């Protein structure tokens, strides 16, 4: 087994180096590029799995690079970072496969896949960051590497979405940087650590610490698309489908949610959050976002827009779980939703991309009878949608179950109400799609249909959603087995609640 922290550096490099090589490749060398991409992604998964096993057996991984007395870059792997790391590297493999199929014959692929790889390296960096400065470093780089992907099509609309994205994320980033420095003047350099900083600091500066938490929360809340900071996300759905998948499930939104988890659990610590009475604020923000996102999703006819608003709502389940962090069940529900939401949402975006690419369908109202033409895609879509609603035995059910138990344990009835209402709304905006596509007859020709020989669409577009749909079912069914995300999350939560 790899000793020390070099493994972490290699994990970062496993997608960074292919990315840099891809930039320099000629446009027409697509075989070499695809091989490089896929082998990088596979290597990354293997390395991450090695790391996971190491962590399970208590191995510690850490690299430090001191820049100045008070500025230190730290890569550190703990169970929580392993969770995010594993999620993003597995989904990256599938998204890469999907993107290769999706962008076949389109221009500028070297550019696209180069940034794609950089984006994943940066996301891994966020997962492995061991203190706020390192987190900040990768968090800002994520903005820079995703921007070229969002404007990839180069249309007027894409540019507008891109500038929206930059305005939101840079403003959030600045507030974040500002408050990280401020925090550090009060606390000194601190690493992420279960339990957070010492309660003495809270007693010394209660007001400043409260304001600081709100600032930090706004900083990461922009990427996590909490209202009213969510505006960029629906606009960014203009990007190609693999990029949406990346934004919603693998990288950006997840980075924001992960940031919230880190700040609450590892910077402030649950006890300090309680003594400052900040957890309810987090809970209210999350609940408002959940309801608002669901209501907005209901009003959208554009499929990807509907999915985007659904992300706004679903990601906040994570924050909702964290806001009841004193209850182990709620915390488990929130953390495990980080994984579950990613897998479910990526399935939905893959399917939406397939519909757009194969049939030219972009709107919900055009989806009548689609399941007859693309049964496998719609099957995967339905599994994803049922997961979002929280129907057993999908993964989504597990998250909602634990969140529900948590809210009962902490006697927060309003949380339970929010859960019920939002599940109801989820059903309202997903079920019509399923009914339309499976049970209604087609009454108009497809806007832009392409024919494929063997399957309903290109095999590279079909495999990823089917795989993720299977994963949704499997991790729901075997949630109690030893290797499910749920058990891993339990392993994480044990750590935090011991504090």
């Amino acid at each position, binding site marked *: 087994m790899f000793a020390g922290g070099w493994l972490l550096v290699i994990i970062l490099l496993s997608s960074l180096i292919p990315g840099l090589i891809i*930039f320099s490749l000629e446009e027409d060398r697509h075989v070499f590029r695809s091989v490089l991409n896929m082998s990088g992604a596979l290597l990354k998964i293997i390395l991450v799995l090695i790391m996971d096993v190491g962590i399970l057996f208590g191995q510690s991984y850490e690299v430090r690079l001191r*820049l100045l007395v008070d500025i230190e870059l730290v890569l550190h792997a703990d169970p929580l970072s392993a969770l995010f790391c594993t999620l993003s590297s597995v989904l990256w493999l599938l998204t890469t496969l999907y993107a290769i199929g999706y962008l076949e014959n389109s221009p500028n692929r070297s550019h696209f896949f180069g940034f794609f790889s950089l984006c994943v390296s940066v996301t891994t960096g966020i997962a492995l960051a061991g203190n706020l400065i390192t987190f900040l470093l990768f968090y800002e780089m994520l903005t*820079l590497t995703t921007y070229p992907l969002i*404007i990839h099509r180069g249309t007027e609309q894409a540019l507008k979405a891109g500038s929206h994205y930059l305005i939101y994320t840079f403003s959030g980033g600045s507030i974040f940087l*500002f408050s990280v*420095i*401020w925090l550090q*003047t009060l606390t000194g350099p601190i690493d992420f650590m279960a339990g957070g900083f010492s309660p003495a600091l809270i007693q010394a500066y209660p007001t400043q610490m409260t304001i600081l938490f709100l600032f930090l929360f706004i900083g990461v809340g922009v990427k996590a698309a909490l209202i009213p900071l969510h505006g960029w996300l629906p606009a960014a759905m203009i990007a190609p489908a693999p990029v949406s998948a990346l934004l919603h499930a693998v990288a950006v939104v997840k980075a924001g949610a992960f940031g919230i988890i880190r700040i609450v659990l590892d910077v402030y610590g649950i006890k300090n959050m309680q003594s400052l009475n900040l957890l309810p604020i987090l809970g209210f923000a999350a609940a408002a976002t959940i309801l608002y996102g669901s209501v907005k999703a209901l009003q959208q006819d554009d499929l990807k827009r509907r999915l985007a608003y659904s992300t706004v709502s679903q990601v906040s389940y994570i924050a909702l779980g964290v806001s009841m962090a004193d209850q182990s069940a709620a915390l488990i529900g929130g953390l495990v939703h980080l994984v579950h939401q990613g897998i479910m949402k990526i399935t939905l975006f893959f399917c939406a991309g397939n519909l757009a690419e194969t049939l030219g369908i972009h709107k919900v109202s055009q989806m009548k009878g689609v399941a007859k033409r693309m049964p496998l895609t719609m099957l995967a879509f339905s599994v994803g949608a049922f997961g979002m609603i929280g129907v057993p035995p999908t993964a989504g059910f597990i998250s909602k179950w634990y969140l529900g138990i948590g809210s009962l344990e902490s006697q927060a009835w309003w949380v339970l109400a929010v859960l019920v209402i939002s599940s109801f709304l989820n059903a309202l905006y997903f079920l019509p799609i399923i009914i339309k596509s499976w049970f209604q007859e087609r009454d108009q020709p497809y806007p832009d249909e392409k024919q494929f020989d063997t399957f309903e669409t290109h095999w590279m577009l079909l495999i990823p959603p089917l795989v993720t749909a299977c994963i949704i079912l499997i991790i729901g069914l075997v949630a109690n087995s030893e290797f499910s995300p749920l058990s891993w999350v339990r392993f994480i939560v044990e750590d935090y609640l011991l504090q």
Partner: protein
Amino acid sequence: MAPILIPLGGGLLSFIFYRKGFSISLLASIVGISLRTDGPSLLMLLMTGVTSITITLYAAGYFSFRIASPSKPGRHERQLQFFWPLWMILLGSLNGLFLAGDIFNIYVTLELIGLSAVALSALSAKPSSQIAAFRYLLVSLLGSLSYLLGIAFLYKTYALLDLDMLRLVPPMKGAHTAFALMSVGLMLKTALFPMHFWLPPAHANALAPVSAILSALVVKASFYLLFRFWFDIFNDLVTPGALFVIGLLGTGAVFWGSIQALRQHRMKLLIAYSTVAQLGYLFIAFPLTQIQEKLYWLPVICMAMGHGFAKTAMFMASGAIFLHVKHDRINELTGVRAYLPVTVFAYTIAGVNLMGLPPSGGFIAKWMLIYAAFEMHKWWWGIVIMLGSLLAAAYVYRVVSKLYVMPPDTIIIEKKAHSMLLEWPPLFLAILSLILGILAPYMVSILLLSKKLVSIGGIM
């Protein structure tokens, strides 16, 4: 070869100084030449060395490209003829300024720098550049005169010119006037808002390598002196009020420069206004500098170095784009990425430094300044710095968003020979500015270890 070797020598010189002493003594009287170096001056020399080697390589490519496709026959050969000697004089005097040990020698090098810089900026021979160069000349002379007057007052007061000795003398009547005159002269030369009016036209209308030299090195020289005088030598004369005013002017520079940059339609003017804004940060550092801290030079040096590298890269990139598409109107730059990918990439990375994102030199500088702002309970400077970074992001974005768009009807321009020298030097400097934060520990060790390492003078 020679033009490449000389700046190389300049860069190496800083390391020779690191180990050995060196002294030239012309007259055993007041006016001699004494050279000395310490941490900050070594770092500035290093920056000058690295930047100048890269600029020299780029300039070689730049002029070959122009001579190969002349707009007027013979013009570029003439430009070339003047460029190398002027550039070498400028480089020599820059190194001289960073090594000078007394304020009169500094005056001489300052004057040499000013004159050769003006001549270089007039090289492009466009009417607009002639006017800008003339204005630059007047400002430069005015600044030097004010500085010289300051020296006269100082000499009258103390009968001393040596920097190390001036450091030790108690404040006396007359010293304040001298200090004020010298400071104003240097601020004029550093283009501190609202004395910046001459900078954008002079920098934007010059040839690309010259713009790079002016923005990266020339303004940094006078800033270096200013900072040295305020915090190393005459720090007894400095009052909190004066520091606050300088900080305010810096704030003005950051906002005014950034907003003007956002309003420009030409890429080079945008970059030139961004220089005004970035210099503003160097002045915001004034009220945030605590000389009891060992590393009080570090934020300004990080900022100056990061900006020097990044701005050189930006001007070089804009020059390369200009040579290929024959204009630099921002709105018509779409599709450039198709044939100049390396240049566009370099421009973007340099922009990251201006925005102050980690791990660039700008980030380290801004981090330390904001940190100091909180420590000294002057958090409002921190807000200014943050807002300035957002504005920087906006004006970097204005160009980058155009460069990254690839409309389907993009015409691929055939690349010519010499493009290698046009494309790779800016990328090298841009990457250097980006990883400057990671190199910070080395900068710290140079600052600490070599404090007063060499101090050999030929006077008195």
